[in-house]
């Protein structure tokens, strides 16, 4: 009896592996596979340590160097200058709005993608979902400049209809709009597997038990999609919280997010201490909010079945 070539090749590989990587070492395999991720996270943690260290030194305006002595001056500055509270508030509100809108829009899209019986529609939805990933954030932001600008498509259309033109660009809503548009594919991508994991029979069962589709959604689909909803919300929220390009380009300086303030501290006013302190505030705030979400929603949220 001759086995197919691929089987024999695999058998050979296995035999070779057994010699090179004896069973004694097997229990190290998992760690070996984890190593790259651990190194990456480790580097991030070290970076964060340096940030913390920077943030605790005041800028010496005479030398434009950070002083040796430890102080909380940078944090005091953030508290004292109302502009930082404003930027922080704007960022948080933006993140909340973008998360709510993006997830709300992503849900029906993901649902249609998962449930449609038409192969053509599914393909169209998939292509439309992945296309934006090939176009970077900056390019897309510039695209919106063209569409929304003073001489842009929208205003030309308005002018053509004899209506007054409007300032669409360089406003907070423009930033939110651009961010929602940017985050939508991420939200959809995270919701699709969660919805695909709900057997269609669940919905049919609910329907035959007397529920209209809206009740089915409320009592069956949304609770069962909770892991995906939370995952999508957390990802969109943190991505928005730290976003730089959209507020820069579509806000044009009117609607800076905290990332812009950090950038300015480092590269405009050359105060790495203040930039680091702002970064620490951002990281702490983001972590606290995400931790809070997981605490409320339960640790099992990200897919561990049955955990309460």
């Amino acid at each position, binding site marked *: 009896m001759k086995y197919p070539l691929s089987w024999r090749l695999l058998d050979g590989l296995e035999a070779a592996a057994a010699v090179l990587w004896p069973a004694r070492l097997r229990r190290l395999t998992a760690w070996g596979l984890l190593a790259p991720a651990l190194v990456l996270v480790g580097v991030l943690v070290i970076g964060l340590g340096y940030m913390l260290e920077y943030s605790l030194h005041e800028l010496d305006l005479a030398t434009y160097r950070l002083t040796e002595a430890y102080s909380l001056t940078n944090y005091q500055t953030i508290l004292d200058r109302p502009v930082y509270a404003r930027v922080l508030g704007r960022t948080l509100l933006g993140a909340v709005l973008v998360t709510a809108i993006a997830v709300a829009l992503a849900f029906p899209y993901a649902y249609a993608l998962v449930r449609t019986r038409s192969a053509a529609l599914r393909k169209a939805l998939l292509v439309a979902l992945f296309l934006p990933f090939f176009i970077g954030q900056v390019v897309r932001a510039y695209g919106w400049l063209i569409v929304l600008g003073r001489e842009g498509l929208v205003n030309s259309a308005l002018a053509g209809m004899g209506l007054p033109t409007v300032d669409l660009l360089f406003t907070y809503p423009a930033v939110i709009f651009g961010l929602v548009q940017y985050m939508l594919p991420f939200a959809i991508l995270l919701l699709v597997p969660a919805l695909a994991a709900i057997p269609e029979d*669940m919905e049919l069962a609910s329907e*035959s*038990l007397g*529920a209209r589709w809206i*009740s089915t959604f409320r009592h*069956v689909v949304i609770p*069962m999609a909770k892991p995906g909803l939370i995952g999508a919300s957390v990802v969109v929220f943190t991505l928005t919280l730290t976003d730089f390009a959209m507020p820069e380009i579509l806000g044009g300086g009117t609607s800076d997010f905290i990332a812009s303030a950090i950038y300015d501290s480092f590269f405009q006013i050359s105060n790495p201490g203040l930039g680091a302190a702002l970064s620490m505030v951002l990281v702490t705030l983001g972590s606290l909010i995400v931790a809070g979400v997981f605490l409320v929603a339960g640790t099992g949220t990200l897919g561990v079945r049955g955990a309460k």
Partner: protein
Amino acid sequence: MDTGSSKRMVEIAGVSKLFGTVAAVSDATLHVDRGDFLTVVGPSGCGKTTLLRMIAGFEHPDAGEIRIGGRRVDAVPPYRRSIGMVFQKLALFPHMTAAENVAYPLKMRRFAPAKIPGLVDEYLGLVRLGDFKDRRPHELSGGQQQRVAIARALVFSPDLLLLDEPLSALDRKLREDMQLEFRRIQQELGVTTINVTHDQREALVMSDRIVVMEGGVIQQADDPVSLYRQPGTPFVARFIGVTSMFPGRVTKETGEAVTVAAGEATLTARGGGAVLGAGAAVECAIRAEQIAIGPRDGAPRFENAVDGIVRQRIFEGERMVYAVEVPGLGGAVLNVFDHDPVSHSVYDETQPVRLEWAARDLIAFPAGPAPAVTTENKPTGSLTT
């Protein structure tokens, strides 16, 4: 409402469903009487689920009409039909406890909130799950999950209960227990039930009536005993029970009985549901338990006798199963059950034996694609189409 529809809970007339070019169900006509337990049985892919989904309202027939309680339901959405359904994979809501699952249809159907806990307790009691109210589905065993699913489907007193092979995933012992359990509950409540399965045993055990389907076409509908005794098509003969088939040709026809030449043997058979003139090609069917196995030199007991050689012998405790090759029938292998392995002789592999059976037990079907029997209008027990 006419008098006919008060006895008939479900009437399905000429219903077809196409998926692309595949006819999942074609021209199905059947009915279920109030309080009856009907089982639709057939091999995988024969259209059972599709038929059930059309009754439940998840799928719309391309042709024909479905009436439930005398009312046409084409335009009635599933949530307005009074149908409890137990799905192939149960579809219990994983985020709700057993009690919440059972309460769900009551809430959705706007039962008075004060009545709900009582009904939930009553139906969980009915399926003997009173102590498991607060468990989630994943904290219950397979059989317990079945019980929750059935309680949930029945708690709102639906007109009709649909079962889509809910027992197929269970092991044999549990499946047989649950079959009896389902039957007990169904009889206790008197709810009209349509069950779907590919397990012919389950169909025989549980049902008042059985519908046999193949390739989207209803082959025969009858009560279990009549169906077993008088299969209307070769497919039904093969699918229900253990039946051996071999080809032959009619040489003489005398009323119900026909004489068939098969291989070198001349056998007497009864016609299986069609007029068979001399010269007609037939397929002969004989059930394993109708064949008597004995030594070649014994006194003749029945009209038909052929000689064969035992090729396989399987001892199953309450019966002995033989596979006997019969050279005189063109080498056909016949399955034989001996239901008394305690007092009868046992024949080993390669041993020569004689097989005998009565003329009325050998059924001759017209060979080739036989026309399906439309048993809707056929009086029980008749053999004619």
